[in-house]
């Protein structure tokens, strides 16, 4: 469990990092928190010939609310979300979700942007990004692109990012007080990758759902919004019946992965449960 040989580079500016990426080609890899990459290197599943350490690029270490967006710099760690990083439902959702990511020491190292780049199907941050409609800001020597989350995640561990591009920032919309958010995940043990999870954001007016964002993670090869379930909910009063219908719509729509811990039928069942519970949580105490 020792990595294959590699050379190590630690640039201290973004420009220097982008230059390394431009010449690094396919054998170069960025290391951020290292919480996914290092295990893969130790198992020799990843064998980058050159490693570009992001941790010295201080200009990417930021996390702030600005112009209706939460701007998450590439070096913002998971642990920075233990307290809501912004007000309102977005901040509340992030602070709830982060507790489900791995364990405390891992959250001190792992980064939000690293999770997005890694694109594990069961990544909570990828699910939040897909559900809320994040913008991924990718930069290379050739310039900057902004990629919507809906176009970013392609499959398990596969994204629209090009090898010479760095995620410099991820932007999440800051929802106003008319929204409610909820999250539910099932994992075998506390801290394990989830087998199924649902994040929801609902805009509710006078007890009726006006807008709905429902995202499911861990079930298919990448997290995605669930249009059928969202449609089933919009225009409905906030009530158990509507939640059950939305949960059924999720169960009907997903094409679940299979692995050691869950076959398709069980994952489908879980997706129904996590969806119903995320909706219940979003609307708990809403008085309807």
């Amino acid at each position, binding site marked *: *469990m*020792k*990595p*294959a*040989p590699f050379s190590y580079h630690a640039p201290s500016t973004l420009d220097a990092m982008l230059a390394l990426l431009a010449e690094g080609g396919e054998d170069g890899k960025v290391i951020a928190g290292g919480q996914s990459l290092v295990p893969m290197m130790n*198992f*020799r599943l990843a064998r980058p010939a050159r490693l570009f350490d992001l941790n010295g690029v201080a200009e990417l270490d930021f996390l702030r609310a600005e112009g209706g967006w939460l701007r998450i710099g590439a070096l913002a760690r998971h642990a920075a979300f233990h307290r809501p990083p912004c007000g309102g439902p977005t901040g509340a959702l992030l602070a709830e979700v982060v507790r489900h990511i791995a364990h405390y020491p891992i959250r001190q190292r792992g980064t939000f942007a690293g999770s997005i780049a890694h694109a594990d199907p069961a990544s909570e941050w990828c699910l939040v990004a897909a559900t809320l409609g994040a913008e991924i800001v990718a930069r290379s020597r050739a310039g900057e692109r902004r990629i919507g989350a809906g176009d970013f995640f392609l499959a398990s561990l596969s994204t629209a990012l090009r090898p010479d591009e760095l995620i410099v920032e991820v932007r999440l919309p800051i929802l106003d007080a008319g929204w409610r958010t909820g999250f539910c995940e*099932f994992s*075998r*043990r*506390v*801290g*394990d*990758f989830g*087998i199924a999870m649902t994040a929801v954001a609902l805009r509710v007016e006078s007890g009726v759902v006006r807008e709905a964002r429902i995202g499911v993670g861990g079930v298919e090869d990448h997290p995605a919004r669930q249009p059928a379930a969202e449609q089933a909910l919009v225009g409905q009063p906030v009530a158990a019946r509507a939640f059950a219908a939305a949960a059924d719509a999720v169960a009907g729509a997903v094409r679940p992965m299979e692995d*050691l*811990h*869950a*076959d398709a*039928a*069980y994952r*489908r*069942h*879980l997706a*129904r*449960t996590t969806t*119903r*519970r995320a909706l219940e949580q979003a609307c708990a105490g809403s008085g309807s």
Partner: protein
Amino acid sequence: MADGPTRYIGMPHKRLEDRTLLTGGGRFAADLSAPGQLHMRVVRSPVAFGRLRSVDVREARRLPGVVAVWTFADVERIPPIQIRLTKIGGLEPYQQTVLARDYVRYVGDPVAAVFAEDPYVAEDAAELVFPEIEELPACISATEPPREFMPETLPGVSSEAACVTKAYGDLDAAFAAAHEVVELEVAVGRHTGVPLETRGALAEFDPAKGTLTMRGAAKVPHYNRGQVARMLDMPDEMVHLIQGHVGGGFGVRGELYPEDVLVCHAALRLKRPVKWVEDRQEHLMAANHSRDQSYRLRAAVDARGFILGLQAEVFSDQGGYVRTHGVTVPDLSAAMLPGPYLVPAYRADVHVRLTNKTPAGTYRAPGRYESTFARERLLDAIAHALGRDPVEVRRVNLIPRDRMPFDRGVDTLGTRVVYDSGDYALLLDKLLAYLDYDRLKQALAARRAAGEHVGFGLGYFVEKSGLGPADKAVISIDAEGMVEVVTGAASIGQGIETAMAQICAEVLEVPIERIRVVHGRTDRIDYGMGAFASRVTVMTGCAVKAAAEALLEKLAGAQVGTPASAEGWFRADHMTYPYGIHAAVVRVDPGTCAVHVERFVVAYDIGRAVNPMLVEGQIVGGAVQGIGGALFEEFVYDANGQPLVTTFGDYLMPTLAEVPPVEALVTEDAPATQNPLGVKGAGEAGINGAGAAIAAAVDDALGRPGAVTRLPVTPIRLHRLLGERD
């Protein structure tokens, strides 16, 4: 002395070991280094079963920093690893050579060993070793009919290595008289003890003295010393095995494995110290697995649920080779299956079958975790078949106190099983009172009526402990009054230094702070049995008592400050049998198919506790592992024999978040009658009945008696059981 006030035995003394460990002073195998050391990396078979045609090591040898690469040809003079326990005839063909000879028999089977200047280079080189293996269809089930084990090189040798049979009484008469016959088929999945410290060793040859020393030993250093000496053709006295701190044993760590012998052999041949530390992935495919047994039970019962006769056919999945434990697990399964019940007629046939999985050995409560699960499932099935309360059915069957000592009618581990003492009904009463059983049942019924899926279950068991034949201790006192206790025991983290010091302090009447306990060193004492089978407190403890008493005798009348030394022995022909009950309350979440353990209680009669806090610690740790085997931990293989669980991402041991506080109800109602301290072992109390209790509680929570037939009860299995309903 004997009637003086008890100051040490029975006191919850804090562990003497802990200051060093808690302040980061521990020295585990990976902490050890020697100047000029080489690092070993083992190249393992990537396929489960195949004919090993050749191993190409040319490229690996050329890598700078590589000193040697060995295949079977380099070690062919080293005999295979012998069986330490329950050696029955005919097992020789199934023993493992230190590197694979002509077949590979599981994924992880060592085919080559690389020795290099640093561990990174060793791993780089290991990737350049290319075994040529002609893959054959793997066998991954012990219930399939046996086949040829290694058809080309051992024609006619069956994959059924042995069939262990234990029987007594008139079974035919029992079935003829039966009011009802209850049948059952259940299985315990493959899991094992997983110490947080992986295996590791550092071997060094001292050319001046001619001695070979291996550090990183555990569990049975004296026995392993003899084996290493024999295999490498050296006199015993020229080989030393030394134990440092050990990060958990559980039956798995400290057995003699191929890697230990390779490290020692390399130190001799390459004339440099050789270090080996396995990684976790290797550990999960190469260290002993355990459990993996299927039981087919038939019981003849009368109208009250009294078992007139019990017939069992058991299939034990041994994996690729028979290792040091021989048929210990099957033997104990058959001997301990009847448990605390009278069962006047009995027969068990345990088929020990080789498959293409990691070889199996003992794991904490070997053969009992499994057989208790099967037996207690049977008791629940009998209760259900007769419409009787499960607790009452157990009561009807328990061996009454006035039948003690009770000859079980079978042998195990070379001794007759005679339960020395016990009041089984009393412990049951105490547990039910502790639980406020009737109220608990009502409360659970009320919650079920309100829509929750909650349930209660229990499992009764008899443990065994204090395996002989003998143990020795040497105690010396110096002019300053400092006392040294040298034992042949081994510490695997269980607190033996503290317990031995307590016994010594009690007899000598010296403060415990003045006592130092030595263990796990073959260079300090010539005899030692090590630590396994919950034997140390009983056997070594009584030897320490004897040595302390001998020392007192020597010192009688001598001047204060006279240095002296004395040795003591304790011998035992029979084991001593503690017993206990596990009780669980669980909640099933039908939305996720997860089982939440709300309460876990272990009632256990220890005979006499040297240190109640350590006993409780043993119980709590064991219970957590037991819950792991019941709900989380399992080595799964695909149809080709590929292991699907080789990391901690998939091998799920419960954490603090998954287990409730374990409640220990320790009683001292039945002291051991065969040893002067009255003590019985504690090591396996916490784990034995956990699978049984949780299975019963899950049944109860679902309102479906007999639903659980297999451990672990994973969510995916529960989902299939429940059908897809919310």
